[in-house]
C-alpha cells in the first residue's frame, strides 16, 4: 500500500468517533491572486487541518476547468511563475505541516516542457504525495508512470461517470493513493450537479473493482452533497466553490466555509 493511501486510511481511523468521516481536499491555484497570497491561503488551510491540499499550477489553456478556475489561472499568469518556485514553496509547506499531504495538479504541457522525469523527481524531493494531470490519459503515460514508481509519488487517475466499465476496471486496478472520481460531466465549478442515485451507482461500481480510497470532486459545494455519499468516499474535493468563496468573501469567510463542510476541522 502506498504512503498516501495509508495516510488516508489512518486519518479516517483517527476520526472513528464520526460515522463515515470524509477527509478534506481543498484546492488552491498557485500564484492567485499573487504568489505570496496563495501561499498564505495554503497555510491557512493547512493550519485548519485539511488533510489534503491540491495545488494547481496554472496553464494558459486549462480545458477541463470552468470559468472560476480559468480566470484565476489567467490572472496568476500575468506574473512570472515557475514550477521550480512552486515546488520550493510546497517543499517548505510540506515540512511545516507534516500532518497533511500535498497534491500537485497541472496540465501536461508545463510538465512536459519542464521534463516529465525531472519534474516527478523534484516533486518527490519537495514531498509531493501525488500528481494530477487531467489531460494525460493512462495510455500515454508510460514515462510518467515509471518516474512516479521510481520516485514514490502517486499518479492520481481520474474516472468519470461515462467511463466505460472495462476501462473503469482497468483504471481502478492501476490506481494507487486514491481515485479521483469526477462526479458528473462537464468542467470544474458551475451549478450543475449529478443526480444522487446516478452518483451512488457509479461510486458503487467503482467500489466493486477496488479497495483504493475514493475522492469525489467537480461541483461539490455543500455538506448535504458530501453527507449523501459519505459511505462510499474517503475524500471530498472542494475546488471552484472554495475559490468563489475566497473571491467573494475573502480567506477568513472561506475558511469558515471549509469548516462547515468538514466539521471535524472546526
Amino acid at each position: 500500500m502506498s504512503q498516501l493511501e495509508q495516510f488516508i486510511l489512518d486519518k479516517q481511523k483517527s476520526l472513528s468517533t464520526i460515522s463515515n468521516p470524509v477527509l478534506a481536499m481543498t484546492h488552491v491555484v498557485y500564484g492567485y491572486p499573487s504568489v505570496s497570497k496563495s501561499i498564505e491561503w495554503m497555510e491557512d488551510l493547512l493550519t485548519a487541518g485539511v488533510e489534503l491540499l491540491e495545488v494547481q499550477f496554472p496553464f494558459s489553456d486549462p480545458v477541463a476547468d470552468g470559468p472560476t478556475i480559468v480566470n484565476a489561472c489567467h490572472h496568476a499568469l500575468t506574473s512570472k511563475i515557475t514550477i521550480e518556485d512552486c515546488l520550493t514553496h510546497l517543499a517548505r509547506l510540506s515540512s511545516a505541516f507534516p500532518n497533511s499531504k500535498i497534491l500537485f495538479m497541472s496540465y501536461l504541457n508545463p510538465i512536459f516542457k519542464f521534463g516529465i522525469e525531472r519534474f516527478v523527481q523534484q516533486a518527490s524531493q519537495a514531498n509531493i504525495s501525488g500528481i494530477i494531470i487531467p489531460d494525460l490519459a493512462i495510455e500515454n503515460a508510460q514515462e510518467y508512470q515509471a518516474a512516479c514508481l521510481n520516485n514514490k509519488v502517486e499518479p492520481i487517475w481520474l474516472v468519470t461517470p461515462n467511463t466505460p466499465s472495462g476501462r473503469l476496471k482497468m483504471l481502478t486496478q492501476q490506481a494507487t493513493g486514491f481515485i479521483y472520481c469526477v462526479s458528473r460531466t462537464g468542467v470544474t465549478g458551475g451549478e450543475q450537479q449529478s443526480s444522487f442515485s446516478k452518483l451512488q451507482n457509479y461510486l458503487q461500481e467503482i467500489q466493486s473493482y477496488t479497495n483504493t480510497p475514493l475522492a469525489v470532486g467537480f461541483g461539490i459545494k455543500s455538506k448535504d452533497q458530501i453527507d449523501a455519499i459519505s459511505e462510499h468516499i474517503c475524500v471530498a474535493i472542494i475546488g471552484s466553490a472554495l475559490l468563489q468563496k475566497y473571491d467573494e468573501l475573502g480567506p477568513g469567510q472561506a475558511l469558515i466555509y471549509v469548516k462547515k463542510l468538514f466539521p471535524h476541522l472546526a
Partner: protein
Amino acid sequence: MKSNNGYYGQYGGSYIPEILYTSQQQILSAFEEAKNDPDFLQELHKQWKQFSGRPTPLTHCENLSRHLGGAQIYLKREDLNHSGAHKMNNVIGQGLLVKRMGKTRVIAETGAGQHGIATALVAARLGLECTIYMGKKDIARQYPNVFWMKQLGATVVSVNTGSQTLKDALDEALRDWSSSHETSHYLIGTACGCAPFPEMVSYFQSVIGKEVREQSQAQFDALPDKLYACVGGGSNAIGLFDNFIPDDKVEMIGVEAAGKGTSMGEHSIRLSNGLGSKGIAQGFSSIFLQDESGQLQDTHSIAAGLDYVGVSPIIAHLAETNRIRMTYATDDEVLQACSLLLTKEGIIPALESSHALAAAFRESKQLSNKTNIVINLSGRGDKDIFNVAKAFQDEEFVPFIQEYAEGFYQDSSLNLHKD
C-alpha cells in the same frame, strides 16, 4: 494522410480530459466505418457537388504570370465553394457523420468566421442545433460572418478569456463538449485536435488535391511543379498536399503568417526560424508558440484564420521530415499580394489565402515560364472588406459607415422585426 495510431511521427495523439474518452472513441469508430461505407461516400460526393458546387475550378492566371515574368500561376478556387472557403468540404463530411452518430447538436470554434459560417449553414440544412465559439477579438474584426451565423440560427458565443482569438475559442468548444458530449459533436474546423480529428479533417479536405491532380493533367498535361497553401491550423494546406505526398517531384510550400515582426506576440510563425517548439495542448501534440514554461503565447496576423498558436500535427510532421518547405509572409506583403490579384485577375482573395499568394508571387519571379505552380485560394475576401478598407485607407469608407449607422434605425420600411 493516414496516421500511425493517431500519430504522425512524434506529433498527434489524443490528450483530452477523461470525460471525453467515450465520445472520442465513438468518433474514431464512426469515421472508420463511414469512410468504408459506399453509401456514405456517395452522399458525401453528392453534397459536395450539389450543395457546395464542387469540383472547384483551377484557374490559369495569365495576366499575373506575364506580369511577374516567371512561372505559370494557377489558382485552385476553393473560394468558389458555397460559404466562400474550403472549410465547407470538412463541414459537409463531419455533418453527415453527426447524422450517422445520431447526435443533434454541433459545437465549433472559428477564427475568421469561415468555419463558423460553414458549420451554421450545414447545421441549418441538416436540422442540427449549432453553437459557435469565437474570440472577442475575432468577432470585432469579422462581424459580417457573425451576423450571418446568427441569421442562420446559430448561437455565437464571444470568448473573452486569454488572447480572445482562435486558441481560446477552441478551449471553450472543448469545455462545452465536456458537458454536452452525449448529444453534441465537436465539429472542429481544422486538422488539429485529438485523434482522429487531424486525420478526418485531412481526409475530407483531400478532395482539393485530388481535383488538382486531374485538372493539372487536363489543363497542362503534367503534375504541378509546386504547390502553395497558407497554414493556419493546416486544413487547406493538407487538403491540397495530401494527394501529392508520394510525388517527390512536386514541391509543397506552406506559408505562415509573419504578421508585424518576429517578436513573440507579433506573428503566428510556428514552423520556421525555431520560433515554435514541441508541446502538448488542446488535445494533441505538435509545435506550439509557447514560452520556456510551456505557457501558450499570444499570436498575431492580419488574417484571423491564421492567428493560431498551434498547427496540425500532420503539417508539423511533414515539415520536420522536409516533405513540406515552410515559409511566411508579413501583413504588408499579404495586402500587396491581395491587391495584385484584384487588379490583374479580377479575383477577391481572403487575407488568409493571400499569404499563399504573397509567398508564391515572391518565388515565382525566379522560375521559368515552363514551371507550373498551383496556389490554394482557400477563400474569398468579401468577409475582409472592413480590414482591407482600413488597410488601404479608403477615404470614403468611414463616411459610408457613419451615414449607414445614423440611418440604421430610421428607415423602418425594411425592418423585418417591426411591430
